[in-house]
């Protein structure tokens, strides 16, 4: 993925969520496989997130520091899932 930033930007500090949004095209089995591959989820966890995406339109699949969150979003986008970053404002 693109080289990370070289300086800390205050606006990007804090925790960020990696959110996967539903699309009507990608197969459920494909989404489960991608979640297992990218995050190392076991099958039931990957399936739970996939169903959340399918039924509720979105699932928060990871929360943490911005740089790693960006890496996850990039990888999910390589697999053609619609993934976005959101600041975690719950903490």
């Amino acid at each position, binding site marked *: 993925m693109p080289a990370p930033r070289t300086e800390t930007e205050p606006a990007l500090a804090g925790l960020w969520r990696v959110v996967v949004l539903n699309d009507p095209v990608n197969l459920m089995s494909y989404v489960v496989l991608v979640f297992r591959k990218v995050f190392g989820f076991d099958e039931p966890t990957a399936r739970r997130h996939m169903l959340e995406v399918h039924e509720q339109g979105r699932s928060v699949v990871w929360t943490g520091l911005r740089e790693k969150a960006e890496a996850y979003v*990039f990888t999910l986008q390589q697999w*053609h899932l619609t993934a976005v970053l959101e600041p975690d404002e719950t903490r």
Partner: protein
Amino acid sequence: MKRVEVKLSLPVVAPLLDLIKRMVDELGGRLAAPHQVQDLDEELNAAWKGELLDGQNEDCRRFLALFDREFFASGTVAFDDNNAESVLRACAAIRLRLRDRELRGITDEAIEGGSVDVTGLGETAQRSFMCYVFLATLQELIIQHLDSAILGG
């Protein structure tokens, strides 16, 4: 290395290849899935998109390489650890493009729920939908037989 050979029906698949190649050509300069990242500066955004595009193009190139002289002689394509991920991603990209470009008239509910009334589609859309289903079938085959190779890689 696990290898899966699939014998395809040449009379069914060969006519779909022109459409697949056209979708790949259209994808040459655009991403199949929406790309949006909050608070990304312009330079990083361009680099990000560029890397995604390079990967997408390479995956599509490897996918099209399946349909070589051997395929037209025997109808056989082969998947293994080396090409399974690329083919999976390329199929996803081409399916997304088909949906955006050729299957716009079908509702999300119908396409997601598998309740598309094929007989109600025009000839062009029918071919596009056949292609869409064919690519999904390849994905299912790879996931069924090579998932451990993909997860281990």
